[in-house]
């Protein structure tokens, strides 16, 4: 394996040519002084091309000396061609562009590489979700992700409930979720994909399997990186409110402003979400138990005790695009959540009075600078400190039915469990976490197209649990957990063969140490004996891999990647998390996997007014000590309330995903994707005893959707009601094939096939300030499940109003 990588590196080493090259840079400005972004700049007769960034700036490298014509084009500007003689290593060219006529819009072919396309062609198995459209509609960030190829978002109920991400058969914490490269758990449950409005997000990158080094961490299933809006080039205020079914109210507002001269930048945004989640349920687990014990299933009822409230704000102050920094921002992020917990892992037993409160105060500093000290040296630094509190209360012993009333016993008295809460023993548990995350990335362009980088990630959590239902003031009952993690990645990126081949080779070093001080309560000879157990663990290991892409025809590209990845058990997997019904498992071991991806991508293939993008990706994962939520090996515990994460041994996933996008005359957009894989249990014999372990060798792992499809269509009407107004119609469907939720075959424990349809419409006024949108979700009121035993919302309607002011 090692020699393979070595020879690969040798092969791709740069072949230095003796010819001389020039670099052209500058800025494209509109005639009104605003920067023109996403302008494609090409040098005729060469393969050199580039795009202007959000500030209108661009840079083209490797332009051979001599006389060339540079062409500036974009949807928004009239094409300009300028002829220049290149005879210096660096030359500058600033131009002023003239806006294109609106009527020309249909005729312009967009050839500029968007951020989406750029990332999707780096060799990693990645898809990029643009949120611009979605932010105007009644969509949650999670819903948006769920529609992406190979992504399955599994939510334990309505808005605010626990969410798990499944990327092509990898799940749980093996999938990293980041906000601007910072692990999302740093921000806590009060600032996560449940409540960050798409309006705050620029784009979401979904990496499957192999991760680029700037997201280096101990993840193996891939990562979801939410990139928040950075664009401070334009002064901008936007706000939206939305209201819909189940008393769901959402509002968000954001402001961005930058002083052109000093570069002083202010970005502020806030959101508020409230919902009762009072949707109707009628599935198998919706029960009514009569006083004589007789259970009626499929009891139609409205969910109760499921209110969710969340508010948060984010302020960043600093300087952008100044001499000494491209970005230097100090930020504060505060959020607060109240979440009623309506049931355990399944909805078998309704809870009334169990709730959690969470708040987080997060301080951050961001610094990045290209060409720091010397040309080609880039530094990115992101440091975050977070103080998070979670409080869970559950003190009521009354037993409830799904009709919302206390359950009656055989003598028609309300049932009460002495010393019990809704889920087991009474609890008033405060969990405090102090999290520090630092990510630094230093890269150096040795010569154009060859970059070396080193990335270091440090993550530490100090966690302190204190339940006042344990004897007060008695420190022996206190649990203190610490975890510290370092991941260092070395990376070499190269673009060779006339930029046709892009390669990325990396090595990652992982280290993690945990410490736990917890009470061990035992009954010895009838006496309760409490001993304080101090345990610690330190592990380190190495991973490596590579990614490449090769363009063999202008629009046809191969992408491939291979990696040996390691992932350490996460804090909640080791120490448990009562808010998400997770039991501690201090003995859990790291998971190691080999990931391989290979795919083809045909980009923007055009016949007349029809444009196609087709991509397919084959993936294979071989996992040792696979970590997953414990699934039952027998048929009891159908109404489980709590469970731990466990190592299950060897597992393998082999699958395929595909995506087709079609566009007609920039009016009709159709997208279809699917993902299907076999995720098999591969542990046949016990490593220690050689004994055959189970009947489940080579069987599909339970509780993982393995066949999903998504499709959507969008049609745009111009000038329909008012001149220059835009109406968009949307349709979306999601399909999940039925899957087992426990190890043995059992009809009872198999989720049904799910097929849901959504419709939406939005209207943008001619002045572009107001967008109104209406969405209808789960149109046919299907019985939907992500997790077995927790029904998701049925039909729902939402209305949203967006208001934007630019250039005030």
């Amino acid at each position, binding site marked *: 394996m090692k020699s393979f990588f070595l020879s690969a590196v040798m092969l791709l080493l740069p072949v230095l040519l003796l010819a001389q090259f020039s670099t052209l840079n500058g800025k494209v400005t509109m005639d009104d002084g605003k920067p023109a972004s996403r302008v494609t700049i090409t040098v005729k007769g060469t393969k050199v091309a580039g795009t202007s960034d959000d500030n209108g700036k661009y840079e083209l490298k490797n332009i051979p000396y001599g006389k060339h014509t540079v062409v500036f084009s974009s949807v928004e500007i009239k094409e300009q061609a300028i002829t220049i003689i290149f005879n210096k290593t660096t030359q500058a060219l600033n131009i002023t562009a003239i806006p294109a006529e609106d009527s020309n819009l249909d005729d312009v072919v967009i050839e500029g590489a968007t951020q989406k396309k750029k990332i999707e062609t780096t060799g990693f198995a990645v898809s990029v979700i643009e949120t611009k459209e979605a932010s105007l509609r009644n969509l949650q960030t999670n819903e948006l992700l769920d529609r992406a190829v190979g992504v399955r978002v599994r939510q334990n109920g309505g808005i605010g409930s626990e969410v798990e991400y499944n990327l092509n058969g990898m799940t749980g914490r093996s999938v990293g979720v980041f906000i601007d490269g910072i692990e999302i758990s740093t921000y806590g449950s009060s600032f996560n994909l449940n409540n960050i409005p798409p309006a705050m997000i620029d784009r979401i990158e979904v990496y499957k399997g192999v991760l680029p080094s700037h997201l280096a961490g101990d993840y193996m299933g891939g990562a979801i990186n939410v990139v928040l809006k950075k664009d401070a080039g334009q002064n901008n205020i936007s706000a939206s409110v939305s209201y819909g079914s189940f008393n769901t109210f959402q509002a968000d507002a954001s402001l961005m402003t930058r002083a052109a001269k000093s570069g002083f930048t202010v970005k502020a945004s806030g959101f508020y979400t409230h919902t009762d989640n009072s949707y109707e349920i009628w599935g198998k687990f919706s029960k009514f138990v009569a006083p004589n*014990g007789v259970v009626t299933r499929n009891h139609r009822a409205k969910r109760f005790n499921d209110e969710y409230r969340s508010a948060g704000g984010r302020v960043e102050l600093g300087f952008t695009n100044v001499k000494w920094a491209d970005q230097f921002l100090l930020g504060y992020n505060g959020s607060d959540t109240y979440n009623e917990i309506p049931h355990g892992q399944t909805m078998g037993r309704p809870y009334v009075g169990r709730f959690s409160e969470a708040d987080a105060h997060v301080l951050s500093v961001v610094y990045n600078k290209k060409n720091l000290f010397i040309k080609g040296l880039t530094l990115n630094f992101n440091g975050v400190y977070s103080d998070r509190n979670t409080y869970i209360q559950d003190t009521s012993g009354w037993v409830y039915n799904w009709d919302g009333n206390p359950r009656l*016993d*055989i003598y028609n008295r309300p049932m009460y469990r002495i010393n019990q809460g809704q889920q087991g023993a009474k609890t008033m548990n405060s969990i405090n976490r102090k999290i520090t995350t630092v990510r630094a990335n230093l890269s150096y362009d040795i010569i154009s197209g060859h970059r070396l980088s080193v990335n270091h990630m440090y993550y530490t959590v100090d966690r302190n649990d204190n339940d006042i239902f344990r004897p007060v003031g008695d420190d022996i009952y206190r649990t203190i957990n610490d975890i510290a993690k370092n991941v260092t990645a070395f990376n070499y990126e190269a673009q060779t063969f006339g930029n046709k081949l892009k390669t990325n080779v990396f090595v990652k070093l992982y280290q993690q140490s945990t410490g736990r001080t917890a009470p061990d309560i035992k009954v010895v000879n009838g*006496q309760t004996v409490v001993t304080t157990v101090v345990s610690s663990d330190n592990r380190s290991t190495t991973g490596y891999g590579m990614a490449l892409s090769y363009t063999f025809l202008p629009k046809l590209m191969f992408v491939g990647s291979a990696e040996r990845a390691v992932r350490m058990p996460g804090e909640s997997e080791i120490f448990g998390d009562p808010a998400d019904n997770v039991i501690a498992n201090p003995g859990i071991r790291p998971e190691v996997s080999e990931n391989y991806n290979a795919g083809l991508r045909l980009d923007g293939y055009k016949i007349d007014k029809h444009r196609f993008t087709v991509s397919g990706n084959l993936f294979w994962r071989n996992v040792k000590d696979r970590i997953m939520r414990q699934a039952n090996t027998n048929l009891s*515990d159908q109404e*489980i309330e709590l469970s731990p994460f466990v190592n299950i041994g060897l597992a393998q996933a082999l699958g395929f995903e595909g995506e087709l996008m079609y566009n007609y005359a920039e009016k009709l957009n159709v997208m279809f994707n699917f993902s299907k894989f076999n995720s098999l249990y591969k542990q046949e014999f016990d490593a220690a005893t050689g*004994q055959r372990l189970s*009947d489940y060798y080579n069987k599909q792992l339970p509780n993982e959707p393995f066949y999903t499809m998504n499709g959507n269509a969008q049609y745009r009407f111009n000038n329909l009601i008012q001149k220059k107004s835009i109406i968009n119609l949307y349709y979306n469907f999601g399909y999940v094939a039925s899957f087992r939720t426990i190890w043995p075959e059992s009809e009872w424990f198999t989720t*049904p096939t799910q097929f849901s349809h959504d419709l939406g419409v939005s209207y943008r006024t001619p002045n572009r300030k107001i967008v109104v949108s209406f969405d209808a979700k789960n149109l046919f009121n299907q019985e939907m499940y992500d997790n077995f035993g927790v029904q998701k919302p049925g039909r729902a309607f939402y209305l949203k109003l967006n208001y934007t002011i630019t250039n005030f």
Partner: protein
Amino acid sequence: MKKQLFKNAILGVAATALLLSSCKKDKDENTNPPGLTERWVTVSGAKMETNPGDGNGGTMVQSLSIEDAKDPNKSFDVFESGFNVKSQRTARLQASEDGKQLFNIQYSGADGGTFNAYNVLGGKNYPSTGAEVDIEPYAGQTPRWYKLYDGDKTGVAVNVSVKNDSVGGKLVSSRGIGTILSLNLQNAAISGVENHELALDAADELKGHFIFRLDAPILNKAGNKLMVGTWMRKYAPGTTTVDGTSDRIGTKTVVVDYPSLKNPKIITSTQATGDNSGYRSQISYLGSDGYIYQATHRERAGAGGSKIIRIGQNNEYDNSYVLSLDNALSITDSYIESWRYAGNGIGYVLYRHGGNKQGYIARVDLRAKTATKIDLPGTEGLDFEQYQGIMINGDEVFVAVTPTGLDGNLYIFNSRTNTVTKGAKLINKAGNRYIGVY
């Protein structure tokens, strides 16, 4: 590829629609196929979870025709071709007298304490029937229960919680609080629940004795008293430290009025000191002579082993009667794991002795107070600890005999003719064993 996918998608929709409509149908349909009169024989097997023989991997059942069950040339593998019964540990299964229904109360786990019934339709065909009943709030997640021999009308589930009373921080007494719950099996629902403080003699309580568990309820011949077996425990006085060495006190039965489940009375045997709770099977039977015969177990080593004692129609122990298995078989420290009364004063006992796990079968004559060991081939490693179901069909007594992890056979003992017949072969899997015939 795309076409195929869409096809699949459409099929999916169609299948969903079909599923939804067929679900509705199921409820109205009479699940009993017409013309079925034969006696099904259900065999059950317990799967291992972590250790061989732990039985915690779930319970599988399969129904055979009585001809197949008796045919030594047939072989069956419940673990390969059976039906998985809902339960965490070995399911506490009971069958209707005609073998056409199985009753189950899940034992331990999140759904422990849930009753449901299955129709027995041959092979792995066990559709659920009737209502599901949740008795957990009364009887807990680990209720012990038996069907009464009242024509499959009633089941009784029992449970005990222990109340420790202290005065000034010092433990003065420990006492079992028993719950007795009756369950209507014909129209599944709870029909009665009573809680009773199970006080012993003050002197015994002072020494630390208390009723730790109830099990093995049985109805007397008159049908007006319910007898519930007990598992006794003793703490060292003033503590909650289990005293496992002091002498035991006389075997006790809790007697309540039936069907009211009220007026508890504790009766004590002078002939035995073991428990009469059984472990995972019934241990008390109403004899054809009107006496209730109880097997005891968990006797102290050297205390004379398991006995069979009896309660008369006056609902008091007949202390003039005892059958000592030690004496009858000339062994020591015998331990009856399970047994069944087969009529005419004859019973079949599954037992071990001398502190070993090895299981044996003997035929006992309750009238003559004698016992004869039945020698069977290939029974090395046989362990009846979790054994639950001995089936009676006329004069025939069916027992599944499989050592842990090894193949075995069904055996049919004729209680009248005293013959032994080898029945169908039972294929086993590592760590598993067959635990019942119903």
